[in-house]
């Protein structure tokens, strides 16, 4: 094994995680607030009531602040691909190439056109044209999240591509199966809906602040109503697509599912945990120590089996089973880690032999090696792993993140329902406790989304591309010092942006709807 610079890998991962998480502080509010302001403007056009116009303009300004500060922060992740993760970038080839660029340009022009009409066009273009521009701005912003999520889904479930050993890269053979991969569609929807949930929480939280201050009450009540209805719909959708995510994870990334549930030993009729405290003494996957100090399943027996396999009696493999193999799957008996590793090594050896044969212009041998490579390619990445423990992601981080995300989802639903109840009773402004809770819940909307990304990304370690490329093979040969330096540069830049965002937002909120 080549001496791996552990700190290089650590810093490269830390930098990617930090910039991705900061980027994700800006994106979801754009998606969610965008829908809210579009709905309000639609109400204005339909009813002709100036109050709706005033509300639309207020939320639109906050949308603008968030959009301006967040825009282009995602490009930083692409800088990192090229510098820190060059093996990976080259290896994935087409998936990050043309489609991402085309989409970027399309979304840019769409947004650049419609966002200016949205902000500058009041009273200058017709009401309907203005309304269409507002909706198209949001559509453009939503679409610009599409391909990057398709690419992410491909890394979790690589399909529609074929590895070309001459170019050392994966080439697209089926665009539609990549775009319409069930993982991609579900991921796109779950992610967009998480933005909607945050947007709704933001709207009820800020409106609650106005009600607590007894300012702009009519505006705040209107906004509260739209926010709460939108929130109920968005949370129902996020729970529905969350169920889809868990199903796809079970099918395509069983180790991630096992870790999400702290399941070491597989079982049929497996329960889903509502709550659990992990045992810190559990250090080895195949010892006899109970992984939990305490746990509480949801009251429906076999719920995890149902979630993962749509069958209450299905067998859900645990961490130990996945490493040791031997259980039945729709594709046949699961292979043990040792066998997968042997196949991975065979694939990498075949690549090396293919290279030598091609250099020697021995095309007959080259064809044989290419066939061996193709046959074992599905396990290519296992050839980089030495011990089975390397297959196991960080259990506490994934387990707690998953359970907090789900718990927050349930809590948000309850909150929106209660808020809506008092909105219809027409006495929400008197429920001080509820107004405070609504205000204080805004940060939790951000927390839930970040936790979701921890589940998805930490939960798939060690893989950059599931089963095919582990992170240690994906990084560039650069010095860890330079990655450390840029880590802090980004930390400073993003923190400055965040401070600017919060300050400008607060200032605009305090000004209230009258001035917009």
């Amino acid at each position, binding site marked *: *094994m*080549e001496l*791996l610079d552990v700190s290089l890998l650590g810093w490269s991962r830390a930098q990617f995680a930090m910039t991705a998480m900061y980027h994700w502080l800006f994106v979801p509010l754009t998606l969610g607030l965008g829908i809210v302001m579009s709905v309000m403007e639609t109400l204005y056009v339909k009813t002709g009531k100036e109050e709706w116009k005033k509300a639309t303009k207020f939320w639109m*300004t906050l949308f*603008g*602040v968030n959009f*301006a*500060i967040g*825009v*282009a922060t995602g*490009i*930083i992740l692409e*800088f*990192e691909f*090229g*510098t*820190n993760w*060059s*093996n990976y*970038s*080259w*290896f994935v080839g087409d998936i990050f190439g043309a489609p991402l660029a085309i989409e970027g340009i399309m979304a840019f022009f769409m947004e650049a056109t419609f966002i*200016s009409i949205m*902000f*500058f*066009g009041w009273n*200058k273009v017709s009401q309907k044209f203005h309304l269409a521009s507002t909706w198209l701005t949001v559509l453009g912003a939503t679409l610009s999240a599409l391909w990057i999520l398709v690419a992410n889904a491909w890394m979790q479930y690589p399909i529609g591509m074929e590895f070309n*050993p*001459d*170019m*050392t*890269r994966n080439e697209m053979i089926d665009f539609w199966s990549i775009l319409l991969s069930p993982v991609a569609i579900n991921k796109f929807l779950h992610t967009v809906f998480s933005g909607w949930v945050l947007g709704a929480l933001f709207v009820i939280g800020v409106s609650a602040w106005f009600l607590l201050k007894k300012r702009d009450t009519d505006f705040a009540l209107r906004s509260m109503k739209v926010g709460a209805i939108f929130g109920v719909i968005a949370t129902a959708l996020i729970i529905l697509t969350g169920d889809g995510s868990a199903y796809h994870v079970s099918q395509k990334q069983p180790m991630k599912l096992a870790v999400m549930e702290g399941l070491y030993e597989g079982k049929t009729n497996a329960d889903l945990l509502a709550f659990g405290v992990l045992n810190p003494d559990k250090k080895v996957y195949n010892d006899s120590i109970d992984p939990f100090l305490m746990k509480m399943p949801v009251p429906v027996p076999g719920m995890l089996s149902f979630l993962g396999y749509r069958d209450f009696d299905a067998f859900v493999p645990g961490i130990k089973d996945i490493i040791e193999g031997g259980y039945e799957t729709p594709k046949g008996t699961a292979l043990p880690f040792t066998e997968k590793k042997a196949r*991975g*090594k065979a694939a*990498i050896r075949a*690549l*090396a032999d293919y*290279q030598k044969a091609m250099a020697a212009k021995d095309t007959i041998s080259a064809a044989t090696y290419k066939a061996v490579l193709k046959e074992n390619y599905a396990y290519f990445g296992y*050839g*980089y792993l030495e011990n089975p423990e390397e297959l196991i992601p960080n259990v506490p981080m994934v387990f707690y993140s998953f359970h907090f995300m789900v718990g927050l989802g349930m809590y948000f639903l309850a909150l929106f329902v209660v808020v809506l109840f008092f909105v219809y009773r027409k006495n929400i402004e008197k429920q001080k406790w509820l107004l405070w809770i609504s205000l204080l819940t805004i940060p939790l909307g951000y927390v839930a989304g970040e936790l979701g990304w921890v589940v998805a990304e930490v939960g798939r370690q060690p893989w950059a591309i599931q089963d095919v490329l582990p992170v*240690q*093979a994906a990084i*560039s*040969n*650069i010095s860890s010092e*330079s990655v450390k*330096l*840029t880590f802090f*540069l*980004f930390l400073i*830049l993003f923190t400055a*942006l965040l401070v*600017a965002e919060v300050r*400008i937002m607060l*200032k*605009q909120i305090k000004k209230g709807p009258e001035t917009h």
Partner: protein
Amino acid sequence: MFNKLYIFYRDGFKNMTVGKTLWLIVLIKLFIMFAILKVFFFPDYLNTNFDSDESKANHVRQELINKSN
């Protein structure tokens, strides 16, 4: 037509309030990102070290082979 567009944007920018601060932030951010970070700290590793697609492919292939044993 173009004149109308020009006036549309000119008036739009003129009447901005918070938008002015936001534009300033966007421009500073883009400058830091593209003129400083990208240029000095984020060279594309393969483009800087290799000229052709073939030599990039060879390099990555060699890396993938070496890293496994």
